């Protein structure tokens, strides 16, 4: 069975945020909510300064704390490794959001879907996209499971101008993600959390 994962090449990433908005468009996330974003990390003092762009998203961990703590069984792991939330079962208790060491989940508050990006006016785009959400549940990156199920790459991977994001099967040693992890020493974020993320970074 495949285990889907992503490799993010921090050398290639230029922090352009094309992924952030490709995700926003694909998933139609409500105001203020991004399923992926690019963090900026700064070290050093002028003039010796290092700035890193670090794209983050749900890590779809193999050993996912969010799955473990979910009292209603709404957060589940698919056989292919994608961690997804069943909105119908989610009770909005936020236990998962607290348990996630990466803070990559958040509650969709009441009223958010009515408000829309233009404050009180829902665009035709938002009307379509918001019909897939429910208020009062926890939402997060889905690895674009609908796209992946159709054989497409996640939206952020599809658009990335730098080709910094690569998606594929971590179980297949010949896949591009496996090869990159092997050849470039890919590492998982916060390995001390013992969650076995499906997202790897290359430096």
């Amino acid at each position, binding site marked *: 069975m495949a285990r889907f994962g992503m490799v993010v090449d921090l050398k290639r990433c*230029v*922090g352009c945020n094309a992924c952030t*908005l490709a995700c926003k*468009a694909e998933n139609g996330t409500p105001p203020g909510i991004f399923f992926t974003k690019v963090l900026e990390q700064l070290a050093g003092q002028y*003039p010796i300064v290092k*700035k890193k762009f670090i794209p983050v998203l749900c890590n779809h961990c193999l050993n996912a704390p969010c799955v473990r703590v979910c009292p209603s069984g709404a957060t589940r792991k698919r056989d292919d490794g994608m961690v997804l939330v069943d909105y119908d079962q989610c009770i909005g208790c936020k236990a998962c959001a607290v348990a996630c060491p990466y803070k990559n989940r958040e509650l969709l508050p009441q009223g958010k879907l009515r408000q829309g990006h*233009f404050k009180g006016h829902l*665009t*035709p785009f938002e009307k379509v996209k918001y019909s897939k959400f429910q208020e009062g549940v926890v939402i997060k990156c889905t690895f674009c499971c609908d796209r992946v199920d159709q054989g497409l790459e996640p*939206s952020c991977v599809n658009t990335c101008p730098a080709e910094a994001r690569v998606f594929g099967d971590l179980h297949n040693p010949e896949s591009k993600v496996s090869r990159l992890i092997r050849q470039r020493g890919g590492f998982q974020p916060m390995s001390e959390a013992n969650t076995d993320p499906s997202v790897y970074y290359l430096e």
Partner: protein
Amino acid sequence: MTQAAFSPADKDRWIKSACKMCLHGCGIRVNVRDGVILKIEGDPDNPNNMGKLCPKGHSGIMRHYDPNRIKTPIRRTNPNRGPGVDPGWEPVSWDEALDIVGRRLKKIRREDPRKLLVAINDFQRIHLWGWGAAFGTGHYFTTTGQFCGAAYHPINGIIDGAFASVNDYEHCNYWIQIGGGDGFSSHLHVAGSIKRMADARVDRGMKLVAVDPRMAAYCAKADEWIPILPGTDRAFILGMVHVMLHELNRYDAQFIKKHTNGPYLIAPGGRLFRCRETQKPMVWDGGDNMAKAYDDPTVGDFALEGRFVVDGAEVTPAFQLIKDALKDHTPERMSGICDVPAGTMRRIALEFVEAARIGSTVMIEGKQYPYRPAAINFYRGAIGHCQGTHDHSAIKLMNMLVGNIDVPGGHLGVGLDHRLLLIEPGPDGMIKPQPHILHPPAPFSCPPQTLQMMEFFPIGLDPAHLVAHNILHPEEWGYDFKPEAALIYHANPLKNINGYHKVLEVFRMLEFIVAIDILPNESTEWADIILPDHSYLESYMMTLCEPPVITGHTLRQPVVEPMYDTRDAHDILTDISHGCGCLDEFNGLLNFTMFLKPEYYLEPGRKHTAQECLDRMAKSIYGPEMGLDWFRQNSNAVRRQKPGEMYMPWDGMRISLYHEYFLQVAGELEEKFRSAGRQWDTSSYHPIPVWNDDHPLHRIPAEYDLYAINFKAEAVINHHENTTIPWINELVSNIPIHKGVLINTRTAREKGISTGDRISIESPFGKVEGLARVIEEIHPRVIGISNAIARWTMHPVERKMNVNFNRLLPASLEFTDLVSGHQETAVKVRISKI
């Protein structure tokens, strides 16, 4: 010709088109389901962006669906205008709106067409920019060139018939980037360029050296960031040129001898030394030890150095003069100007010449080319200054010295459109200078006819920042008319022209303003009538602007029916032209600007639709089989440029190392001013780029102790206009550098300023307030202001942080590059906590 038909049966479709979220126009595919636009992606079949798309491109959905779009022609009911004053818009029919505009403009045209100001900035439709010329007015009342490209485009055109330039992504191994976002955040088709740059950096291990006062994205990704003071990049470059010429003695002598005017003998006074009989420029043959015509086949060795006496005249090869002029430009002296250590200049100069592999060649598709995989790339940050021509020339000089112009690995010219580099033989064995790729020069006239004084800038680009001053002080240059109306089409002069208070005064003077746009902005909130344009997802365009690596148009086409009672801006201008009596002139202009062949010329007296014009344009460029229908089927005619188009297309002609052309232009200009009884400073027309200590920016009194720069907000924002898109707004609200005025930690500490403090920023020319954002990654003597915090439009999404950088800038001849018309885009300021 078939109309775009949207049958209800097409419930879920992907339609190919072209992006218009910046000027360059990447190929896109748009998902429309049940008539709703759900996604925009890069078109994987377009060799330009190869399926990639930047954040602006994705956010086009939310501009299209912005409920604040202008839905029908509107007119103001509130007679009072001003920043933040509600115009009290009321809808009006197209017939009535066009009638009002037509009658008003007709009257002006009859009285004196120069009384109309024109601001057209729809950057992809360059063919409409000249509408004012059809009307009879030459004023250009919006920033185009003078902020970014005035000292850029004409100089590129003079060197190699190019409009822009960028290093060779596919072969360069050592890339110095100064004040530009190529390959990271902006300029020249950013999505494809980011990929090409990432491939070069990561797959090929290309070394990147970044020079900028602020750690922009490209600096963060570079192997080395060299912070520098604004407006001193030329000093940094010339310090390195000094090292190459006077310390290392390393440069590509063969290239200079064969492909430039470096060996041409220069007479005292700086002009070419010509053969008395033939008038041909002379060179010195080091083999036969005598002067010969530059094209004498017996010349064995073109001498670059030495001093000679020919026919009693003391003459010197141009190269020797350049070397002499830079003898005192030691790294130590230049370091005191630009604040880059002399040792760094020496090291980078050495790395650069070594990486250039002078003398090496490469075979590409069966042809041998010089191979020079080291080059300097740059943009507005480096040359957007009041001596920008010199800044640009200095960078070109350093490139040319290693022989990297238009060769694999080097610094490549980029054309404006499908014409690629405009290569024509000029006089004296040289390539013909092409400073006028955007529009023909304005013939000299004193008093000038245009308020931006184009008549005084024979090789420059419209310095629109001079317009307001000349309106308010007509007596200075003898203007005998007073503008009373403006036409503003996808432009925002109040926001984008510096010298805000002067522009504001002009806006207060204007009796009538008509605007064409999809959303109101700071300027069009003053309009009497706004005529609503289609969004780019509802309209047609043949798109191709400044393409690196590739060439060929991509069709922009409607992906949905227009949402509102809008019309294509091209058709609106046709209607206005008809109404005010300049339709024939407009059609004539389009014949020229749309590259129409005679068989496709527009007919006098007839209103041609935008689609019809584009069809004729496509057929004129690509042949009768490739009209709009072909493009509807095939989306684009984009292909890679051939090696012969990209590399040395001027082979056999020489390019300008020593800009004798400047002296020629200056001489002609001086003569014209003499005849007119006026004076004009032509000292900037200098054939050799040197550092000039008398630099207006650096002469600003020391009490203004910091430099201030603004920046383009990386890949997220085009100019400033995307800040009304909620997705972009949310995004920049989360990025530290767009949260306030950037100040270095050390400087902030000295001044007792912390992040979040309200500060005042004052230049000799204006004052703004903003929130401080204390960071490490900026030069301690520089503050930075993002374009994401510069607006005050009434649009409800805009954050209205209103740290309008332009208010700090000068807008006067003193701070204008008198060759190119470029304005000074940096300034000195003092800041304090409020």
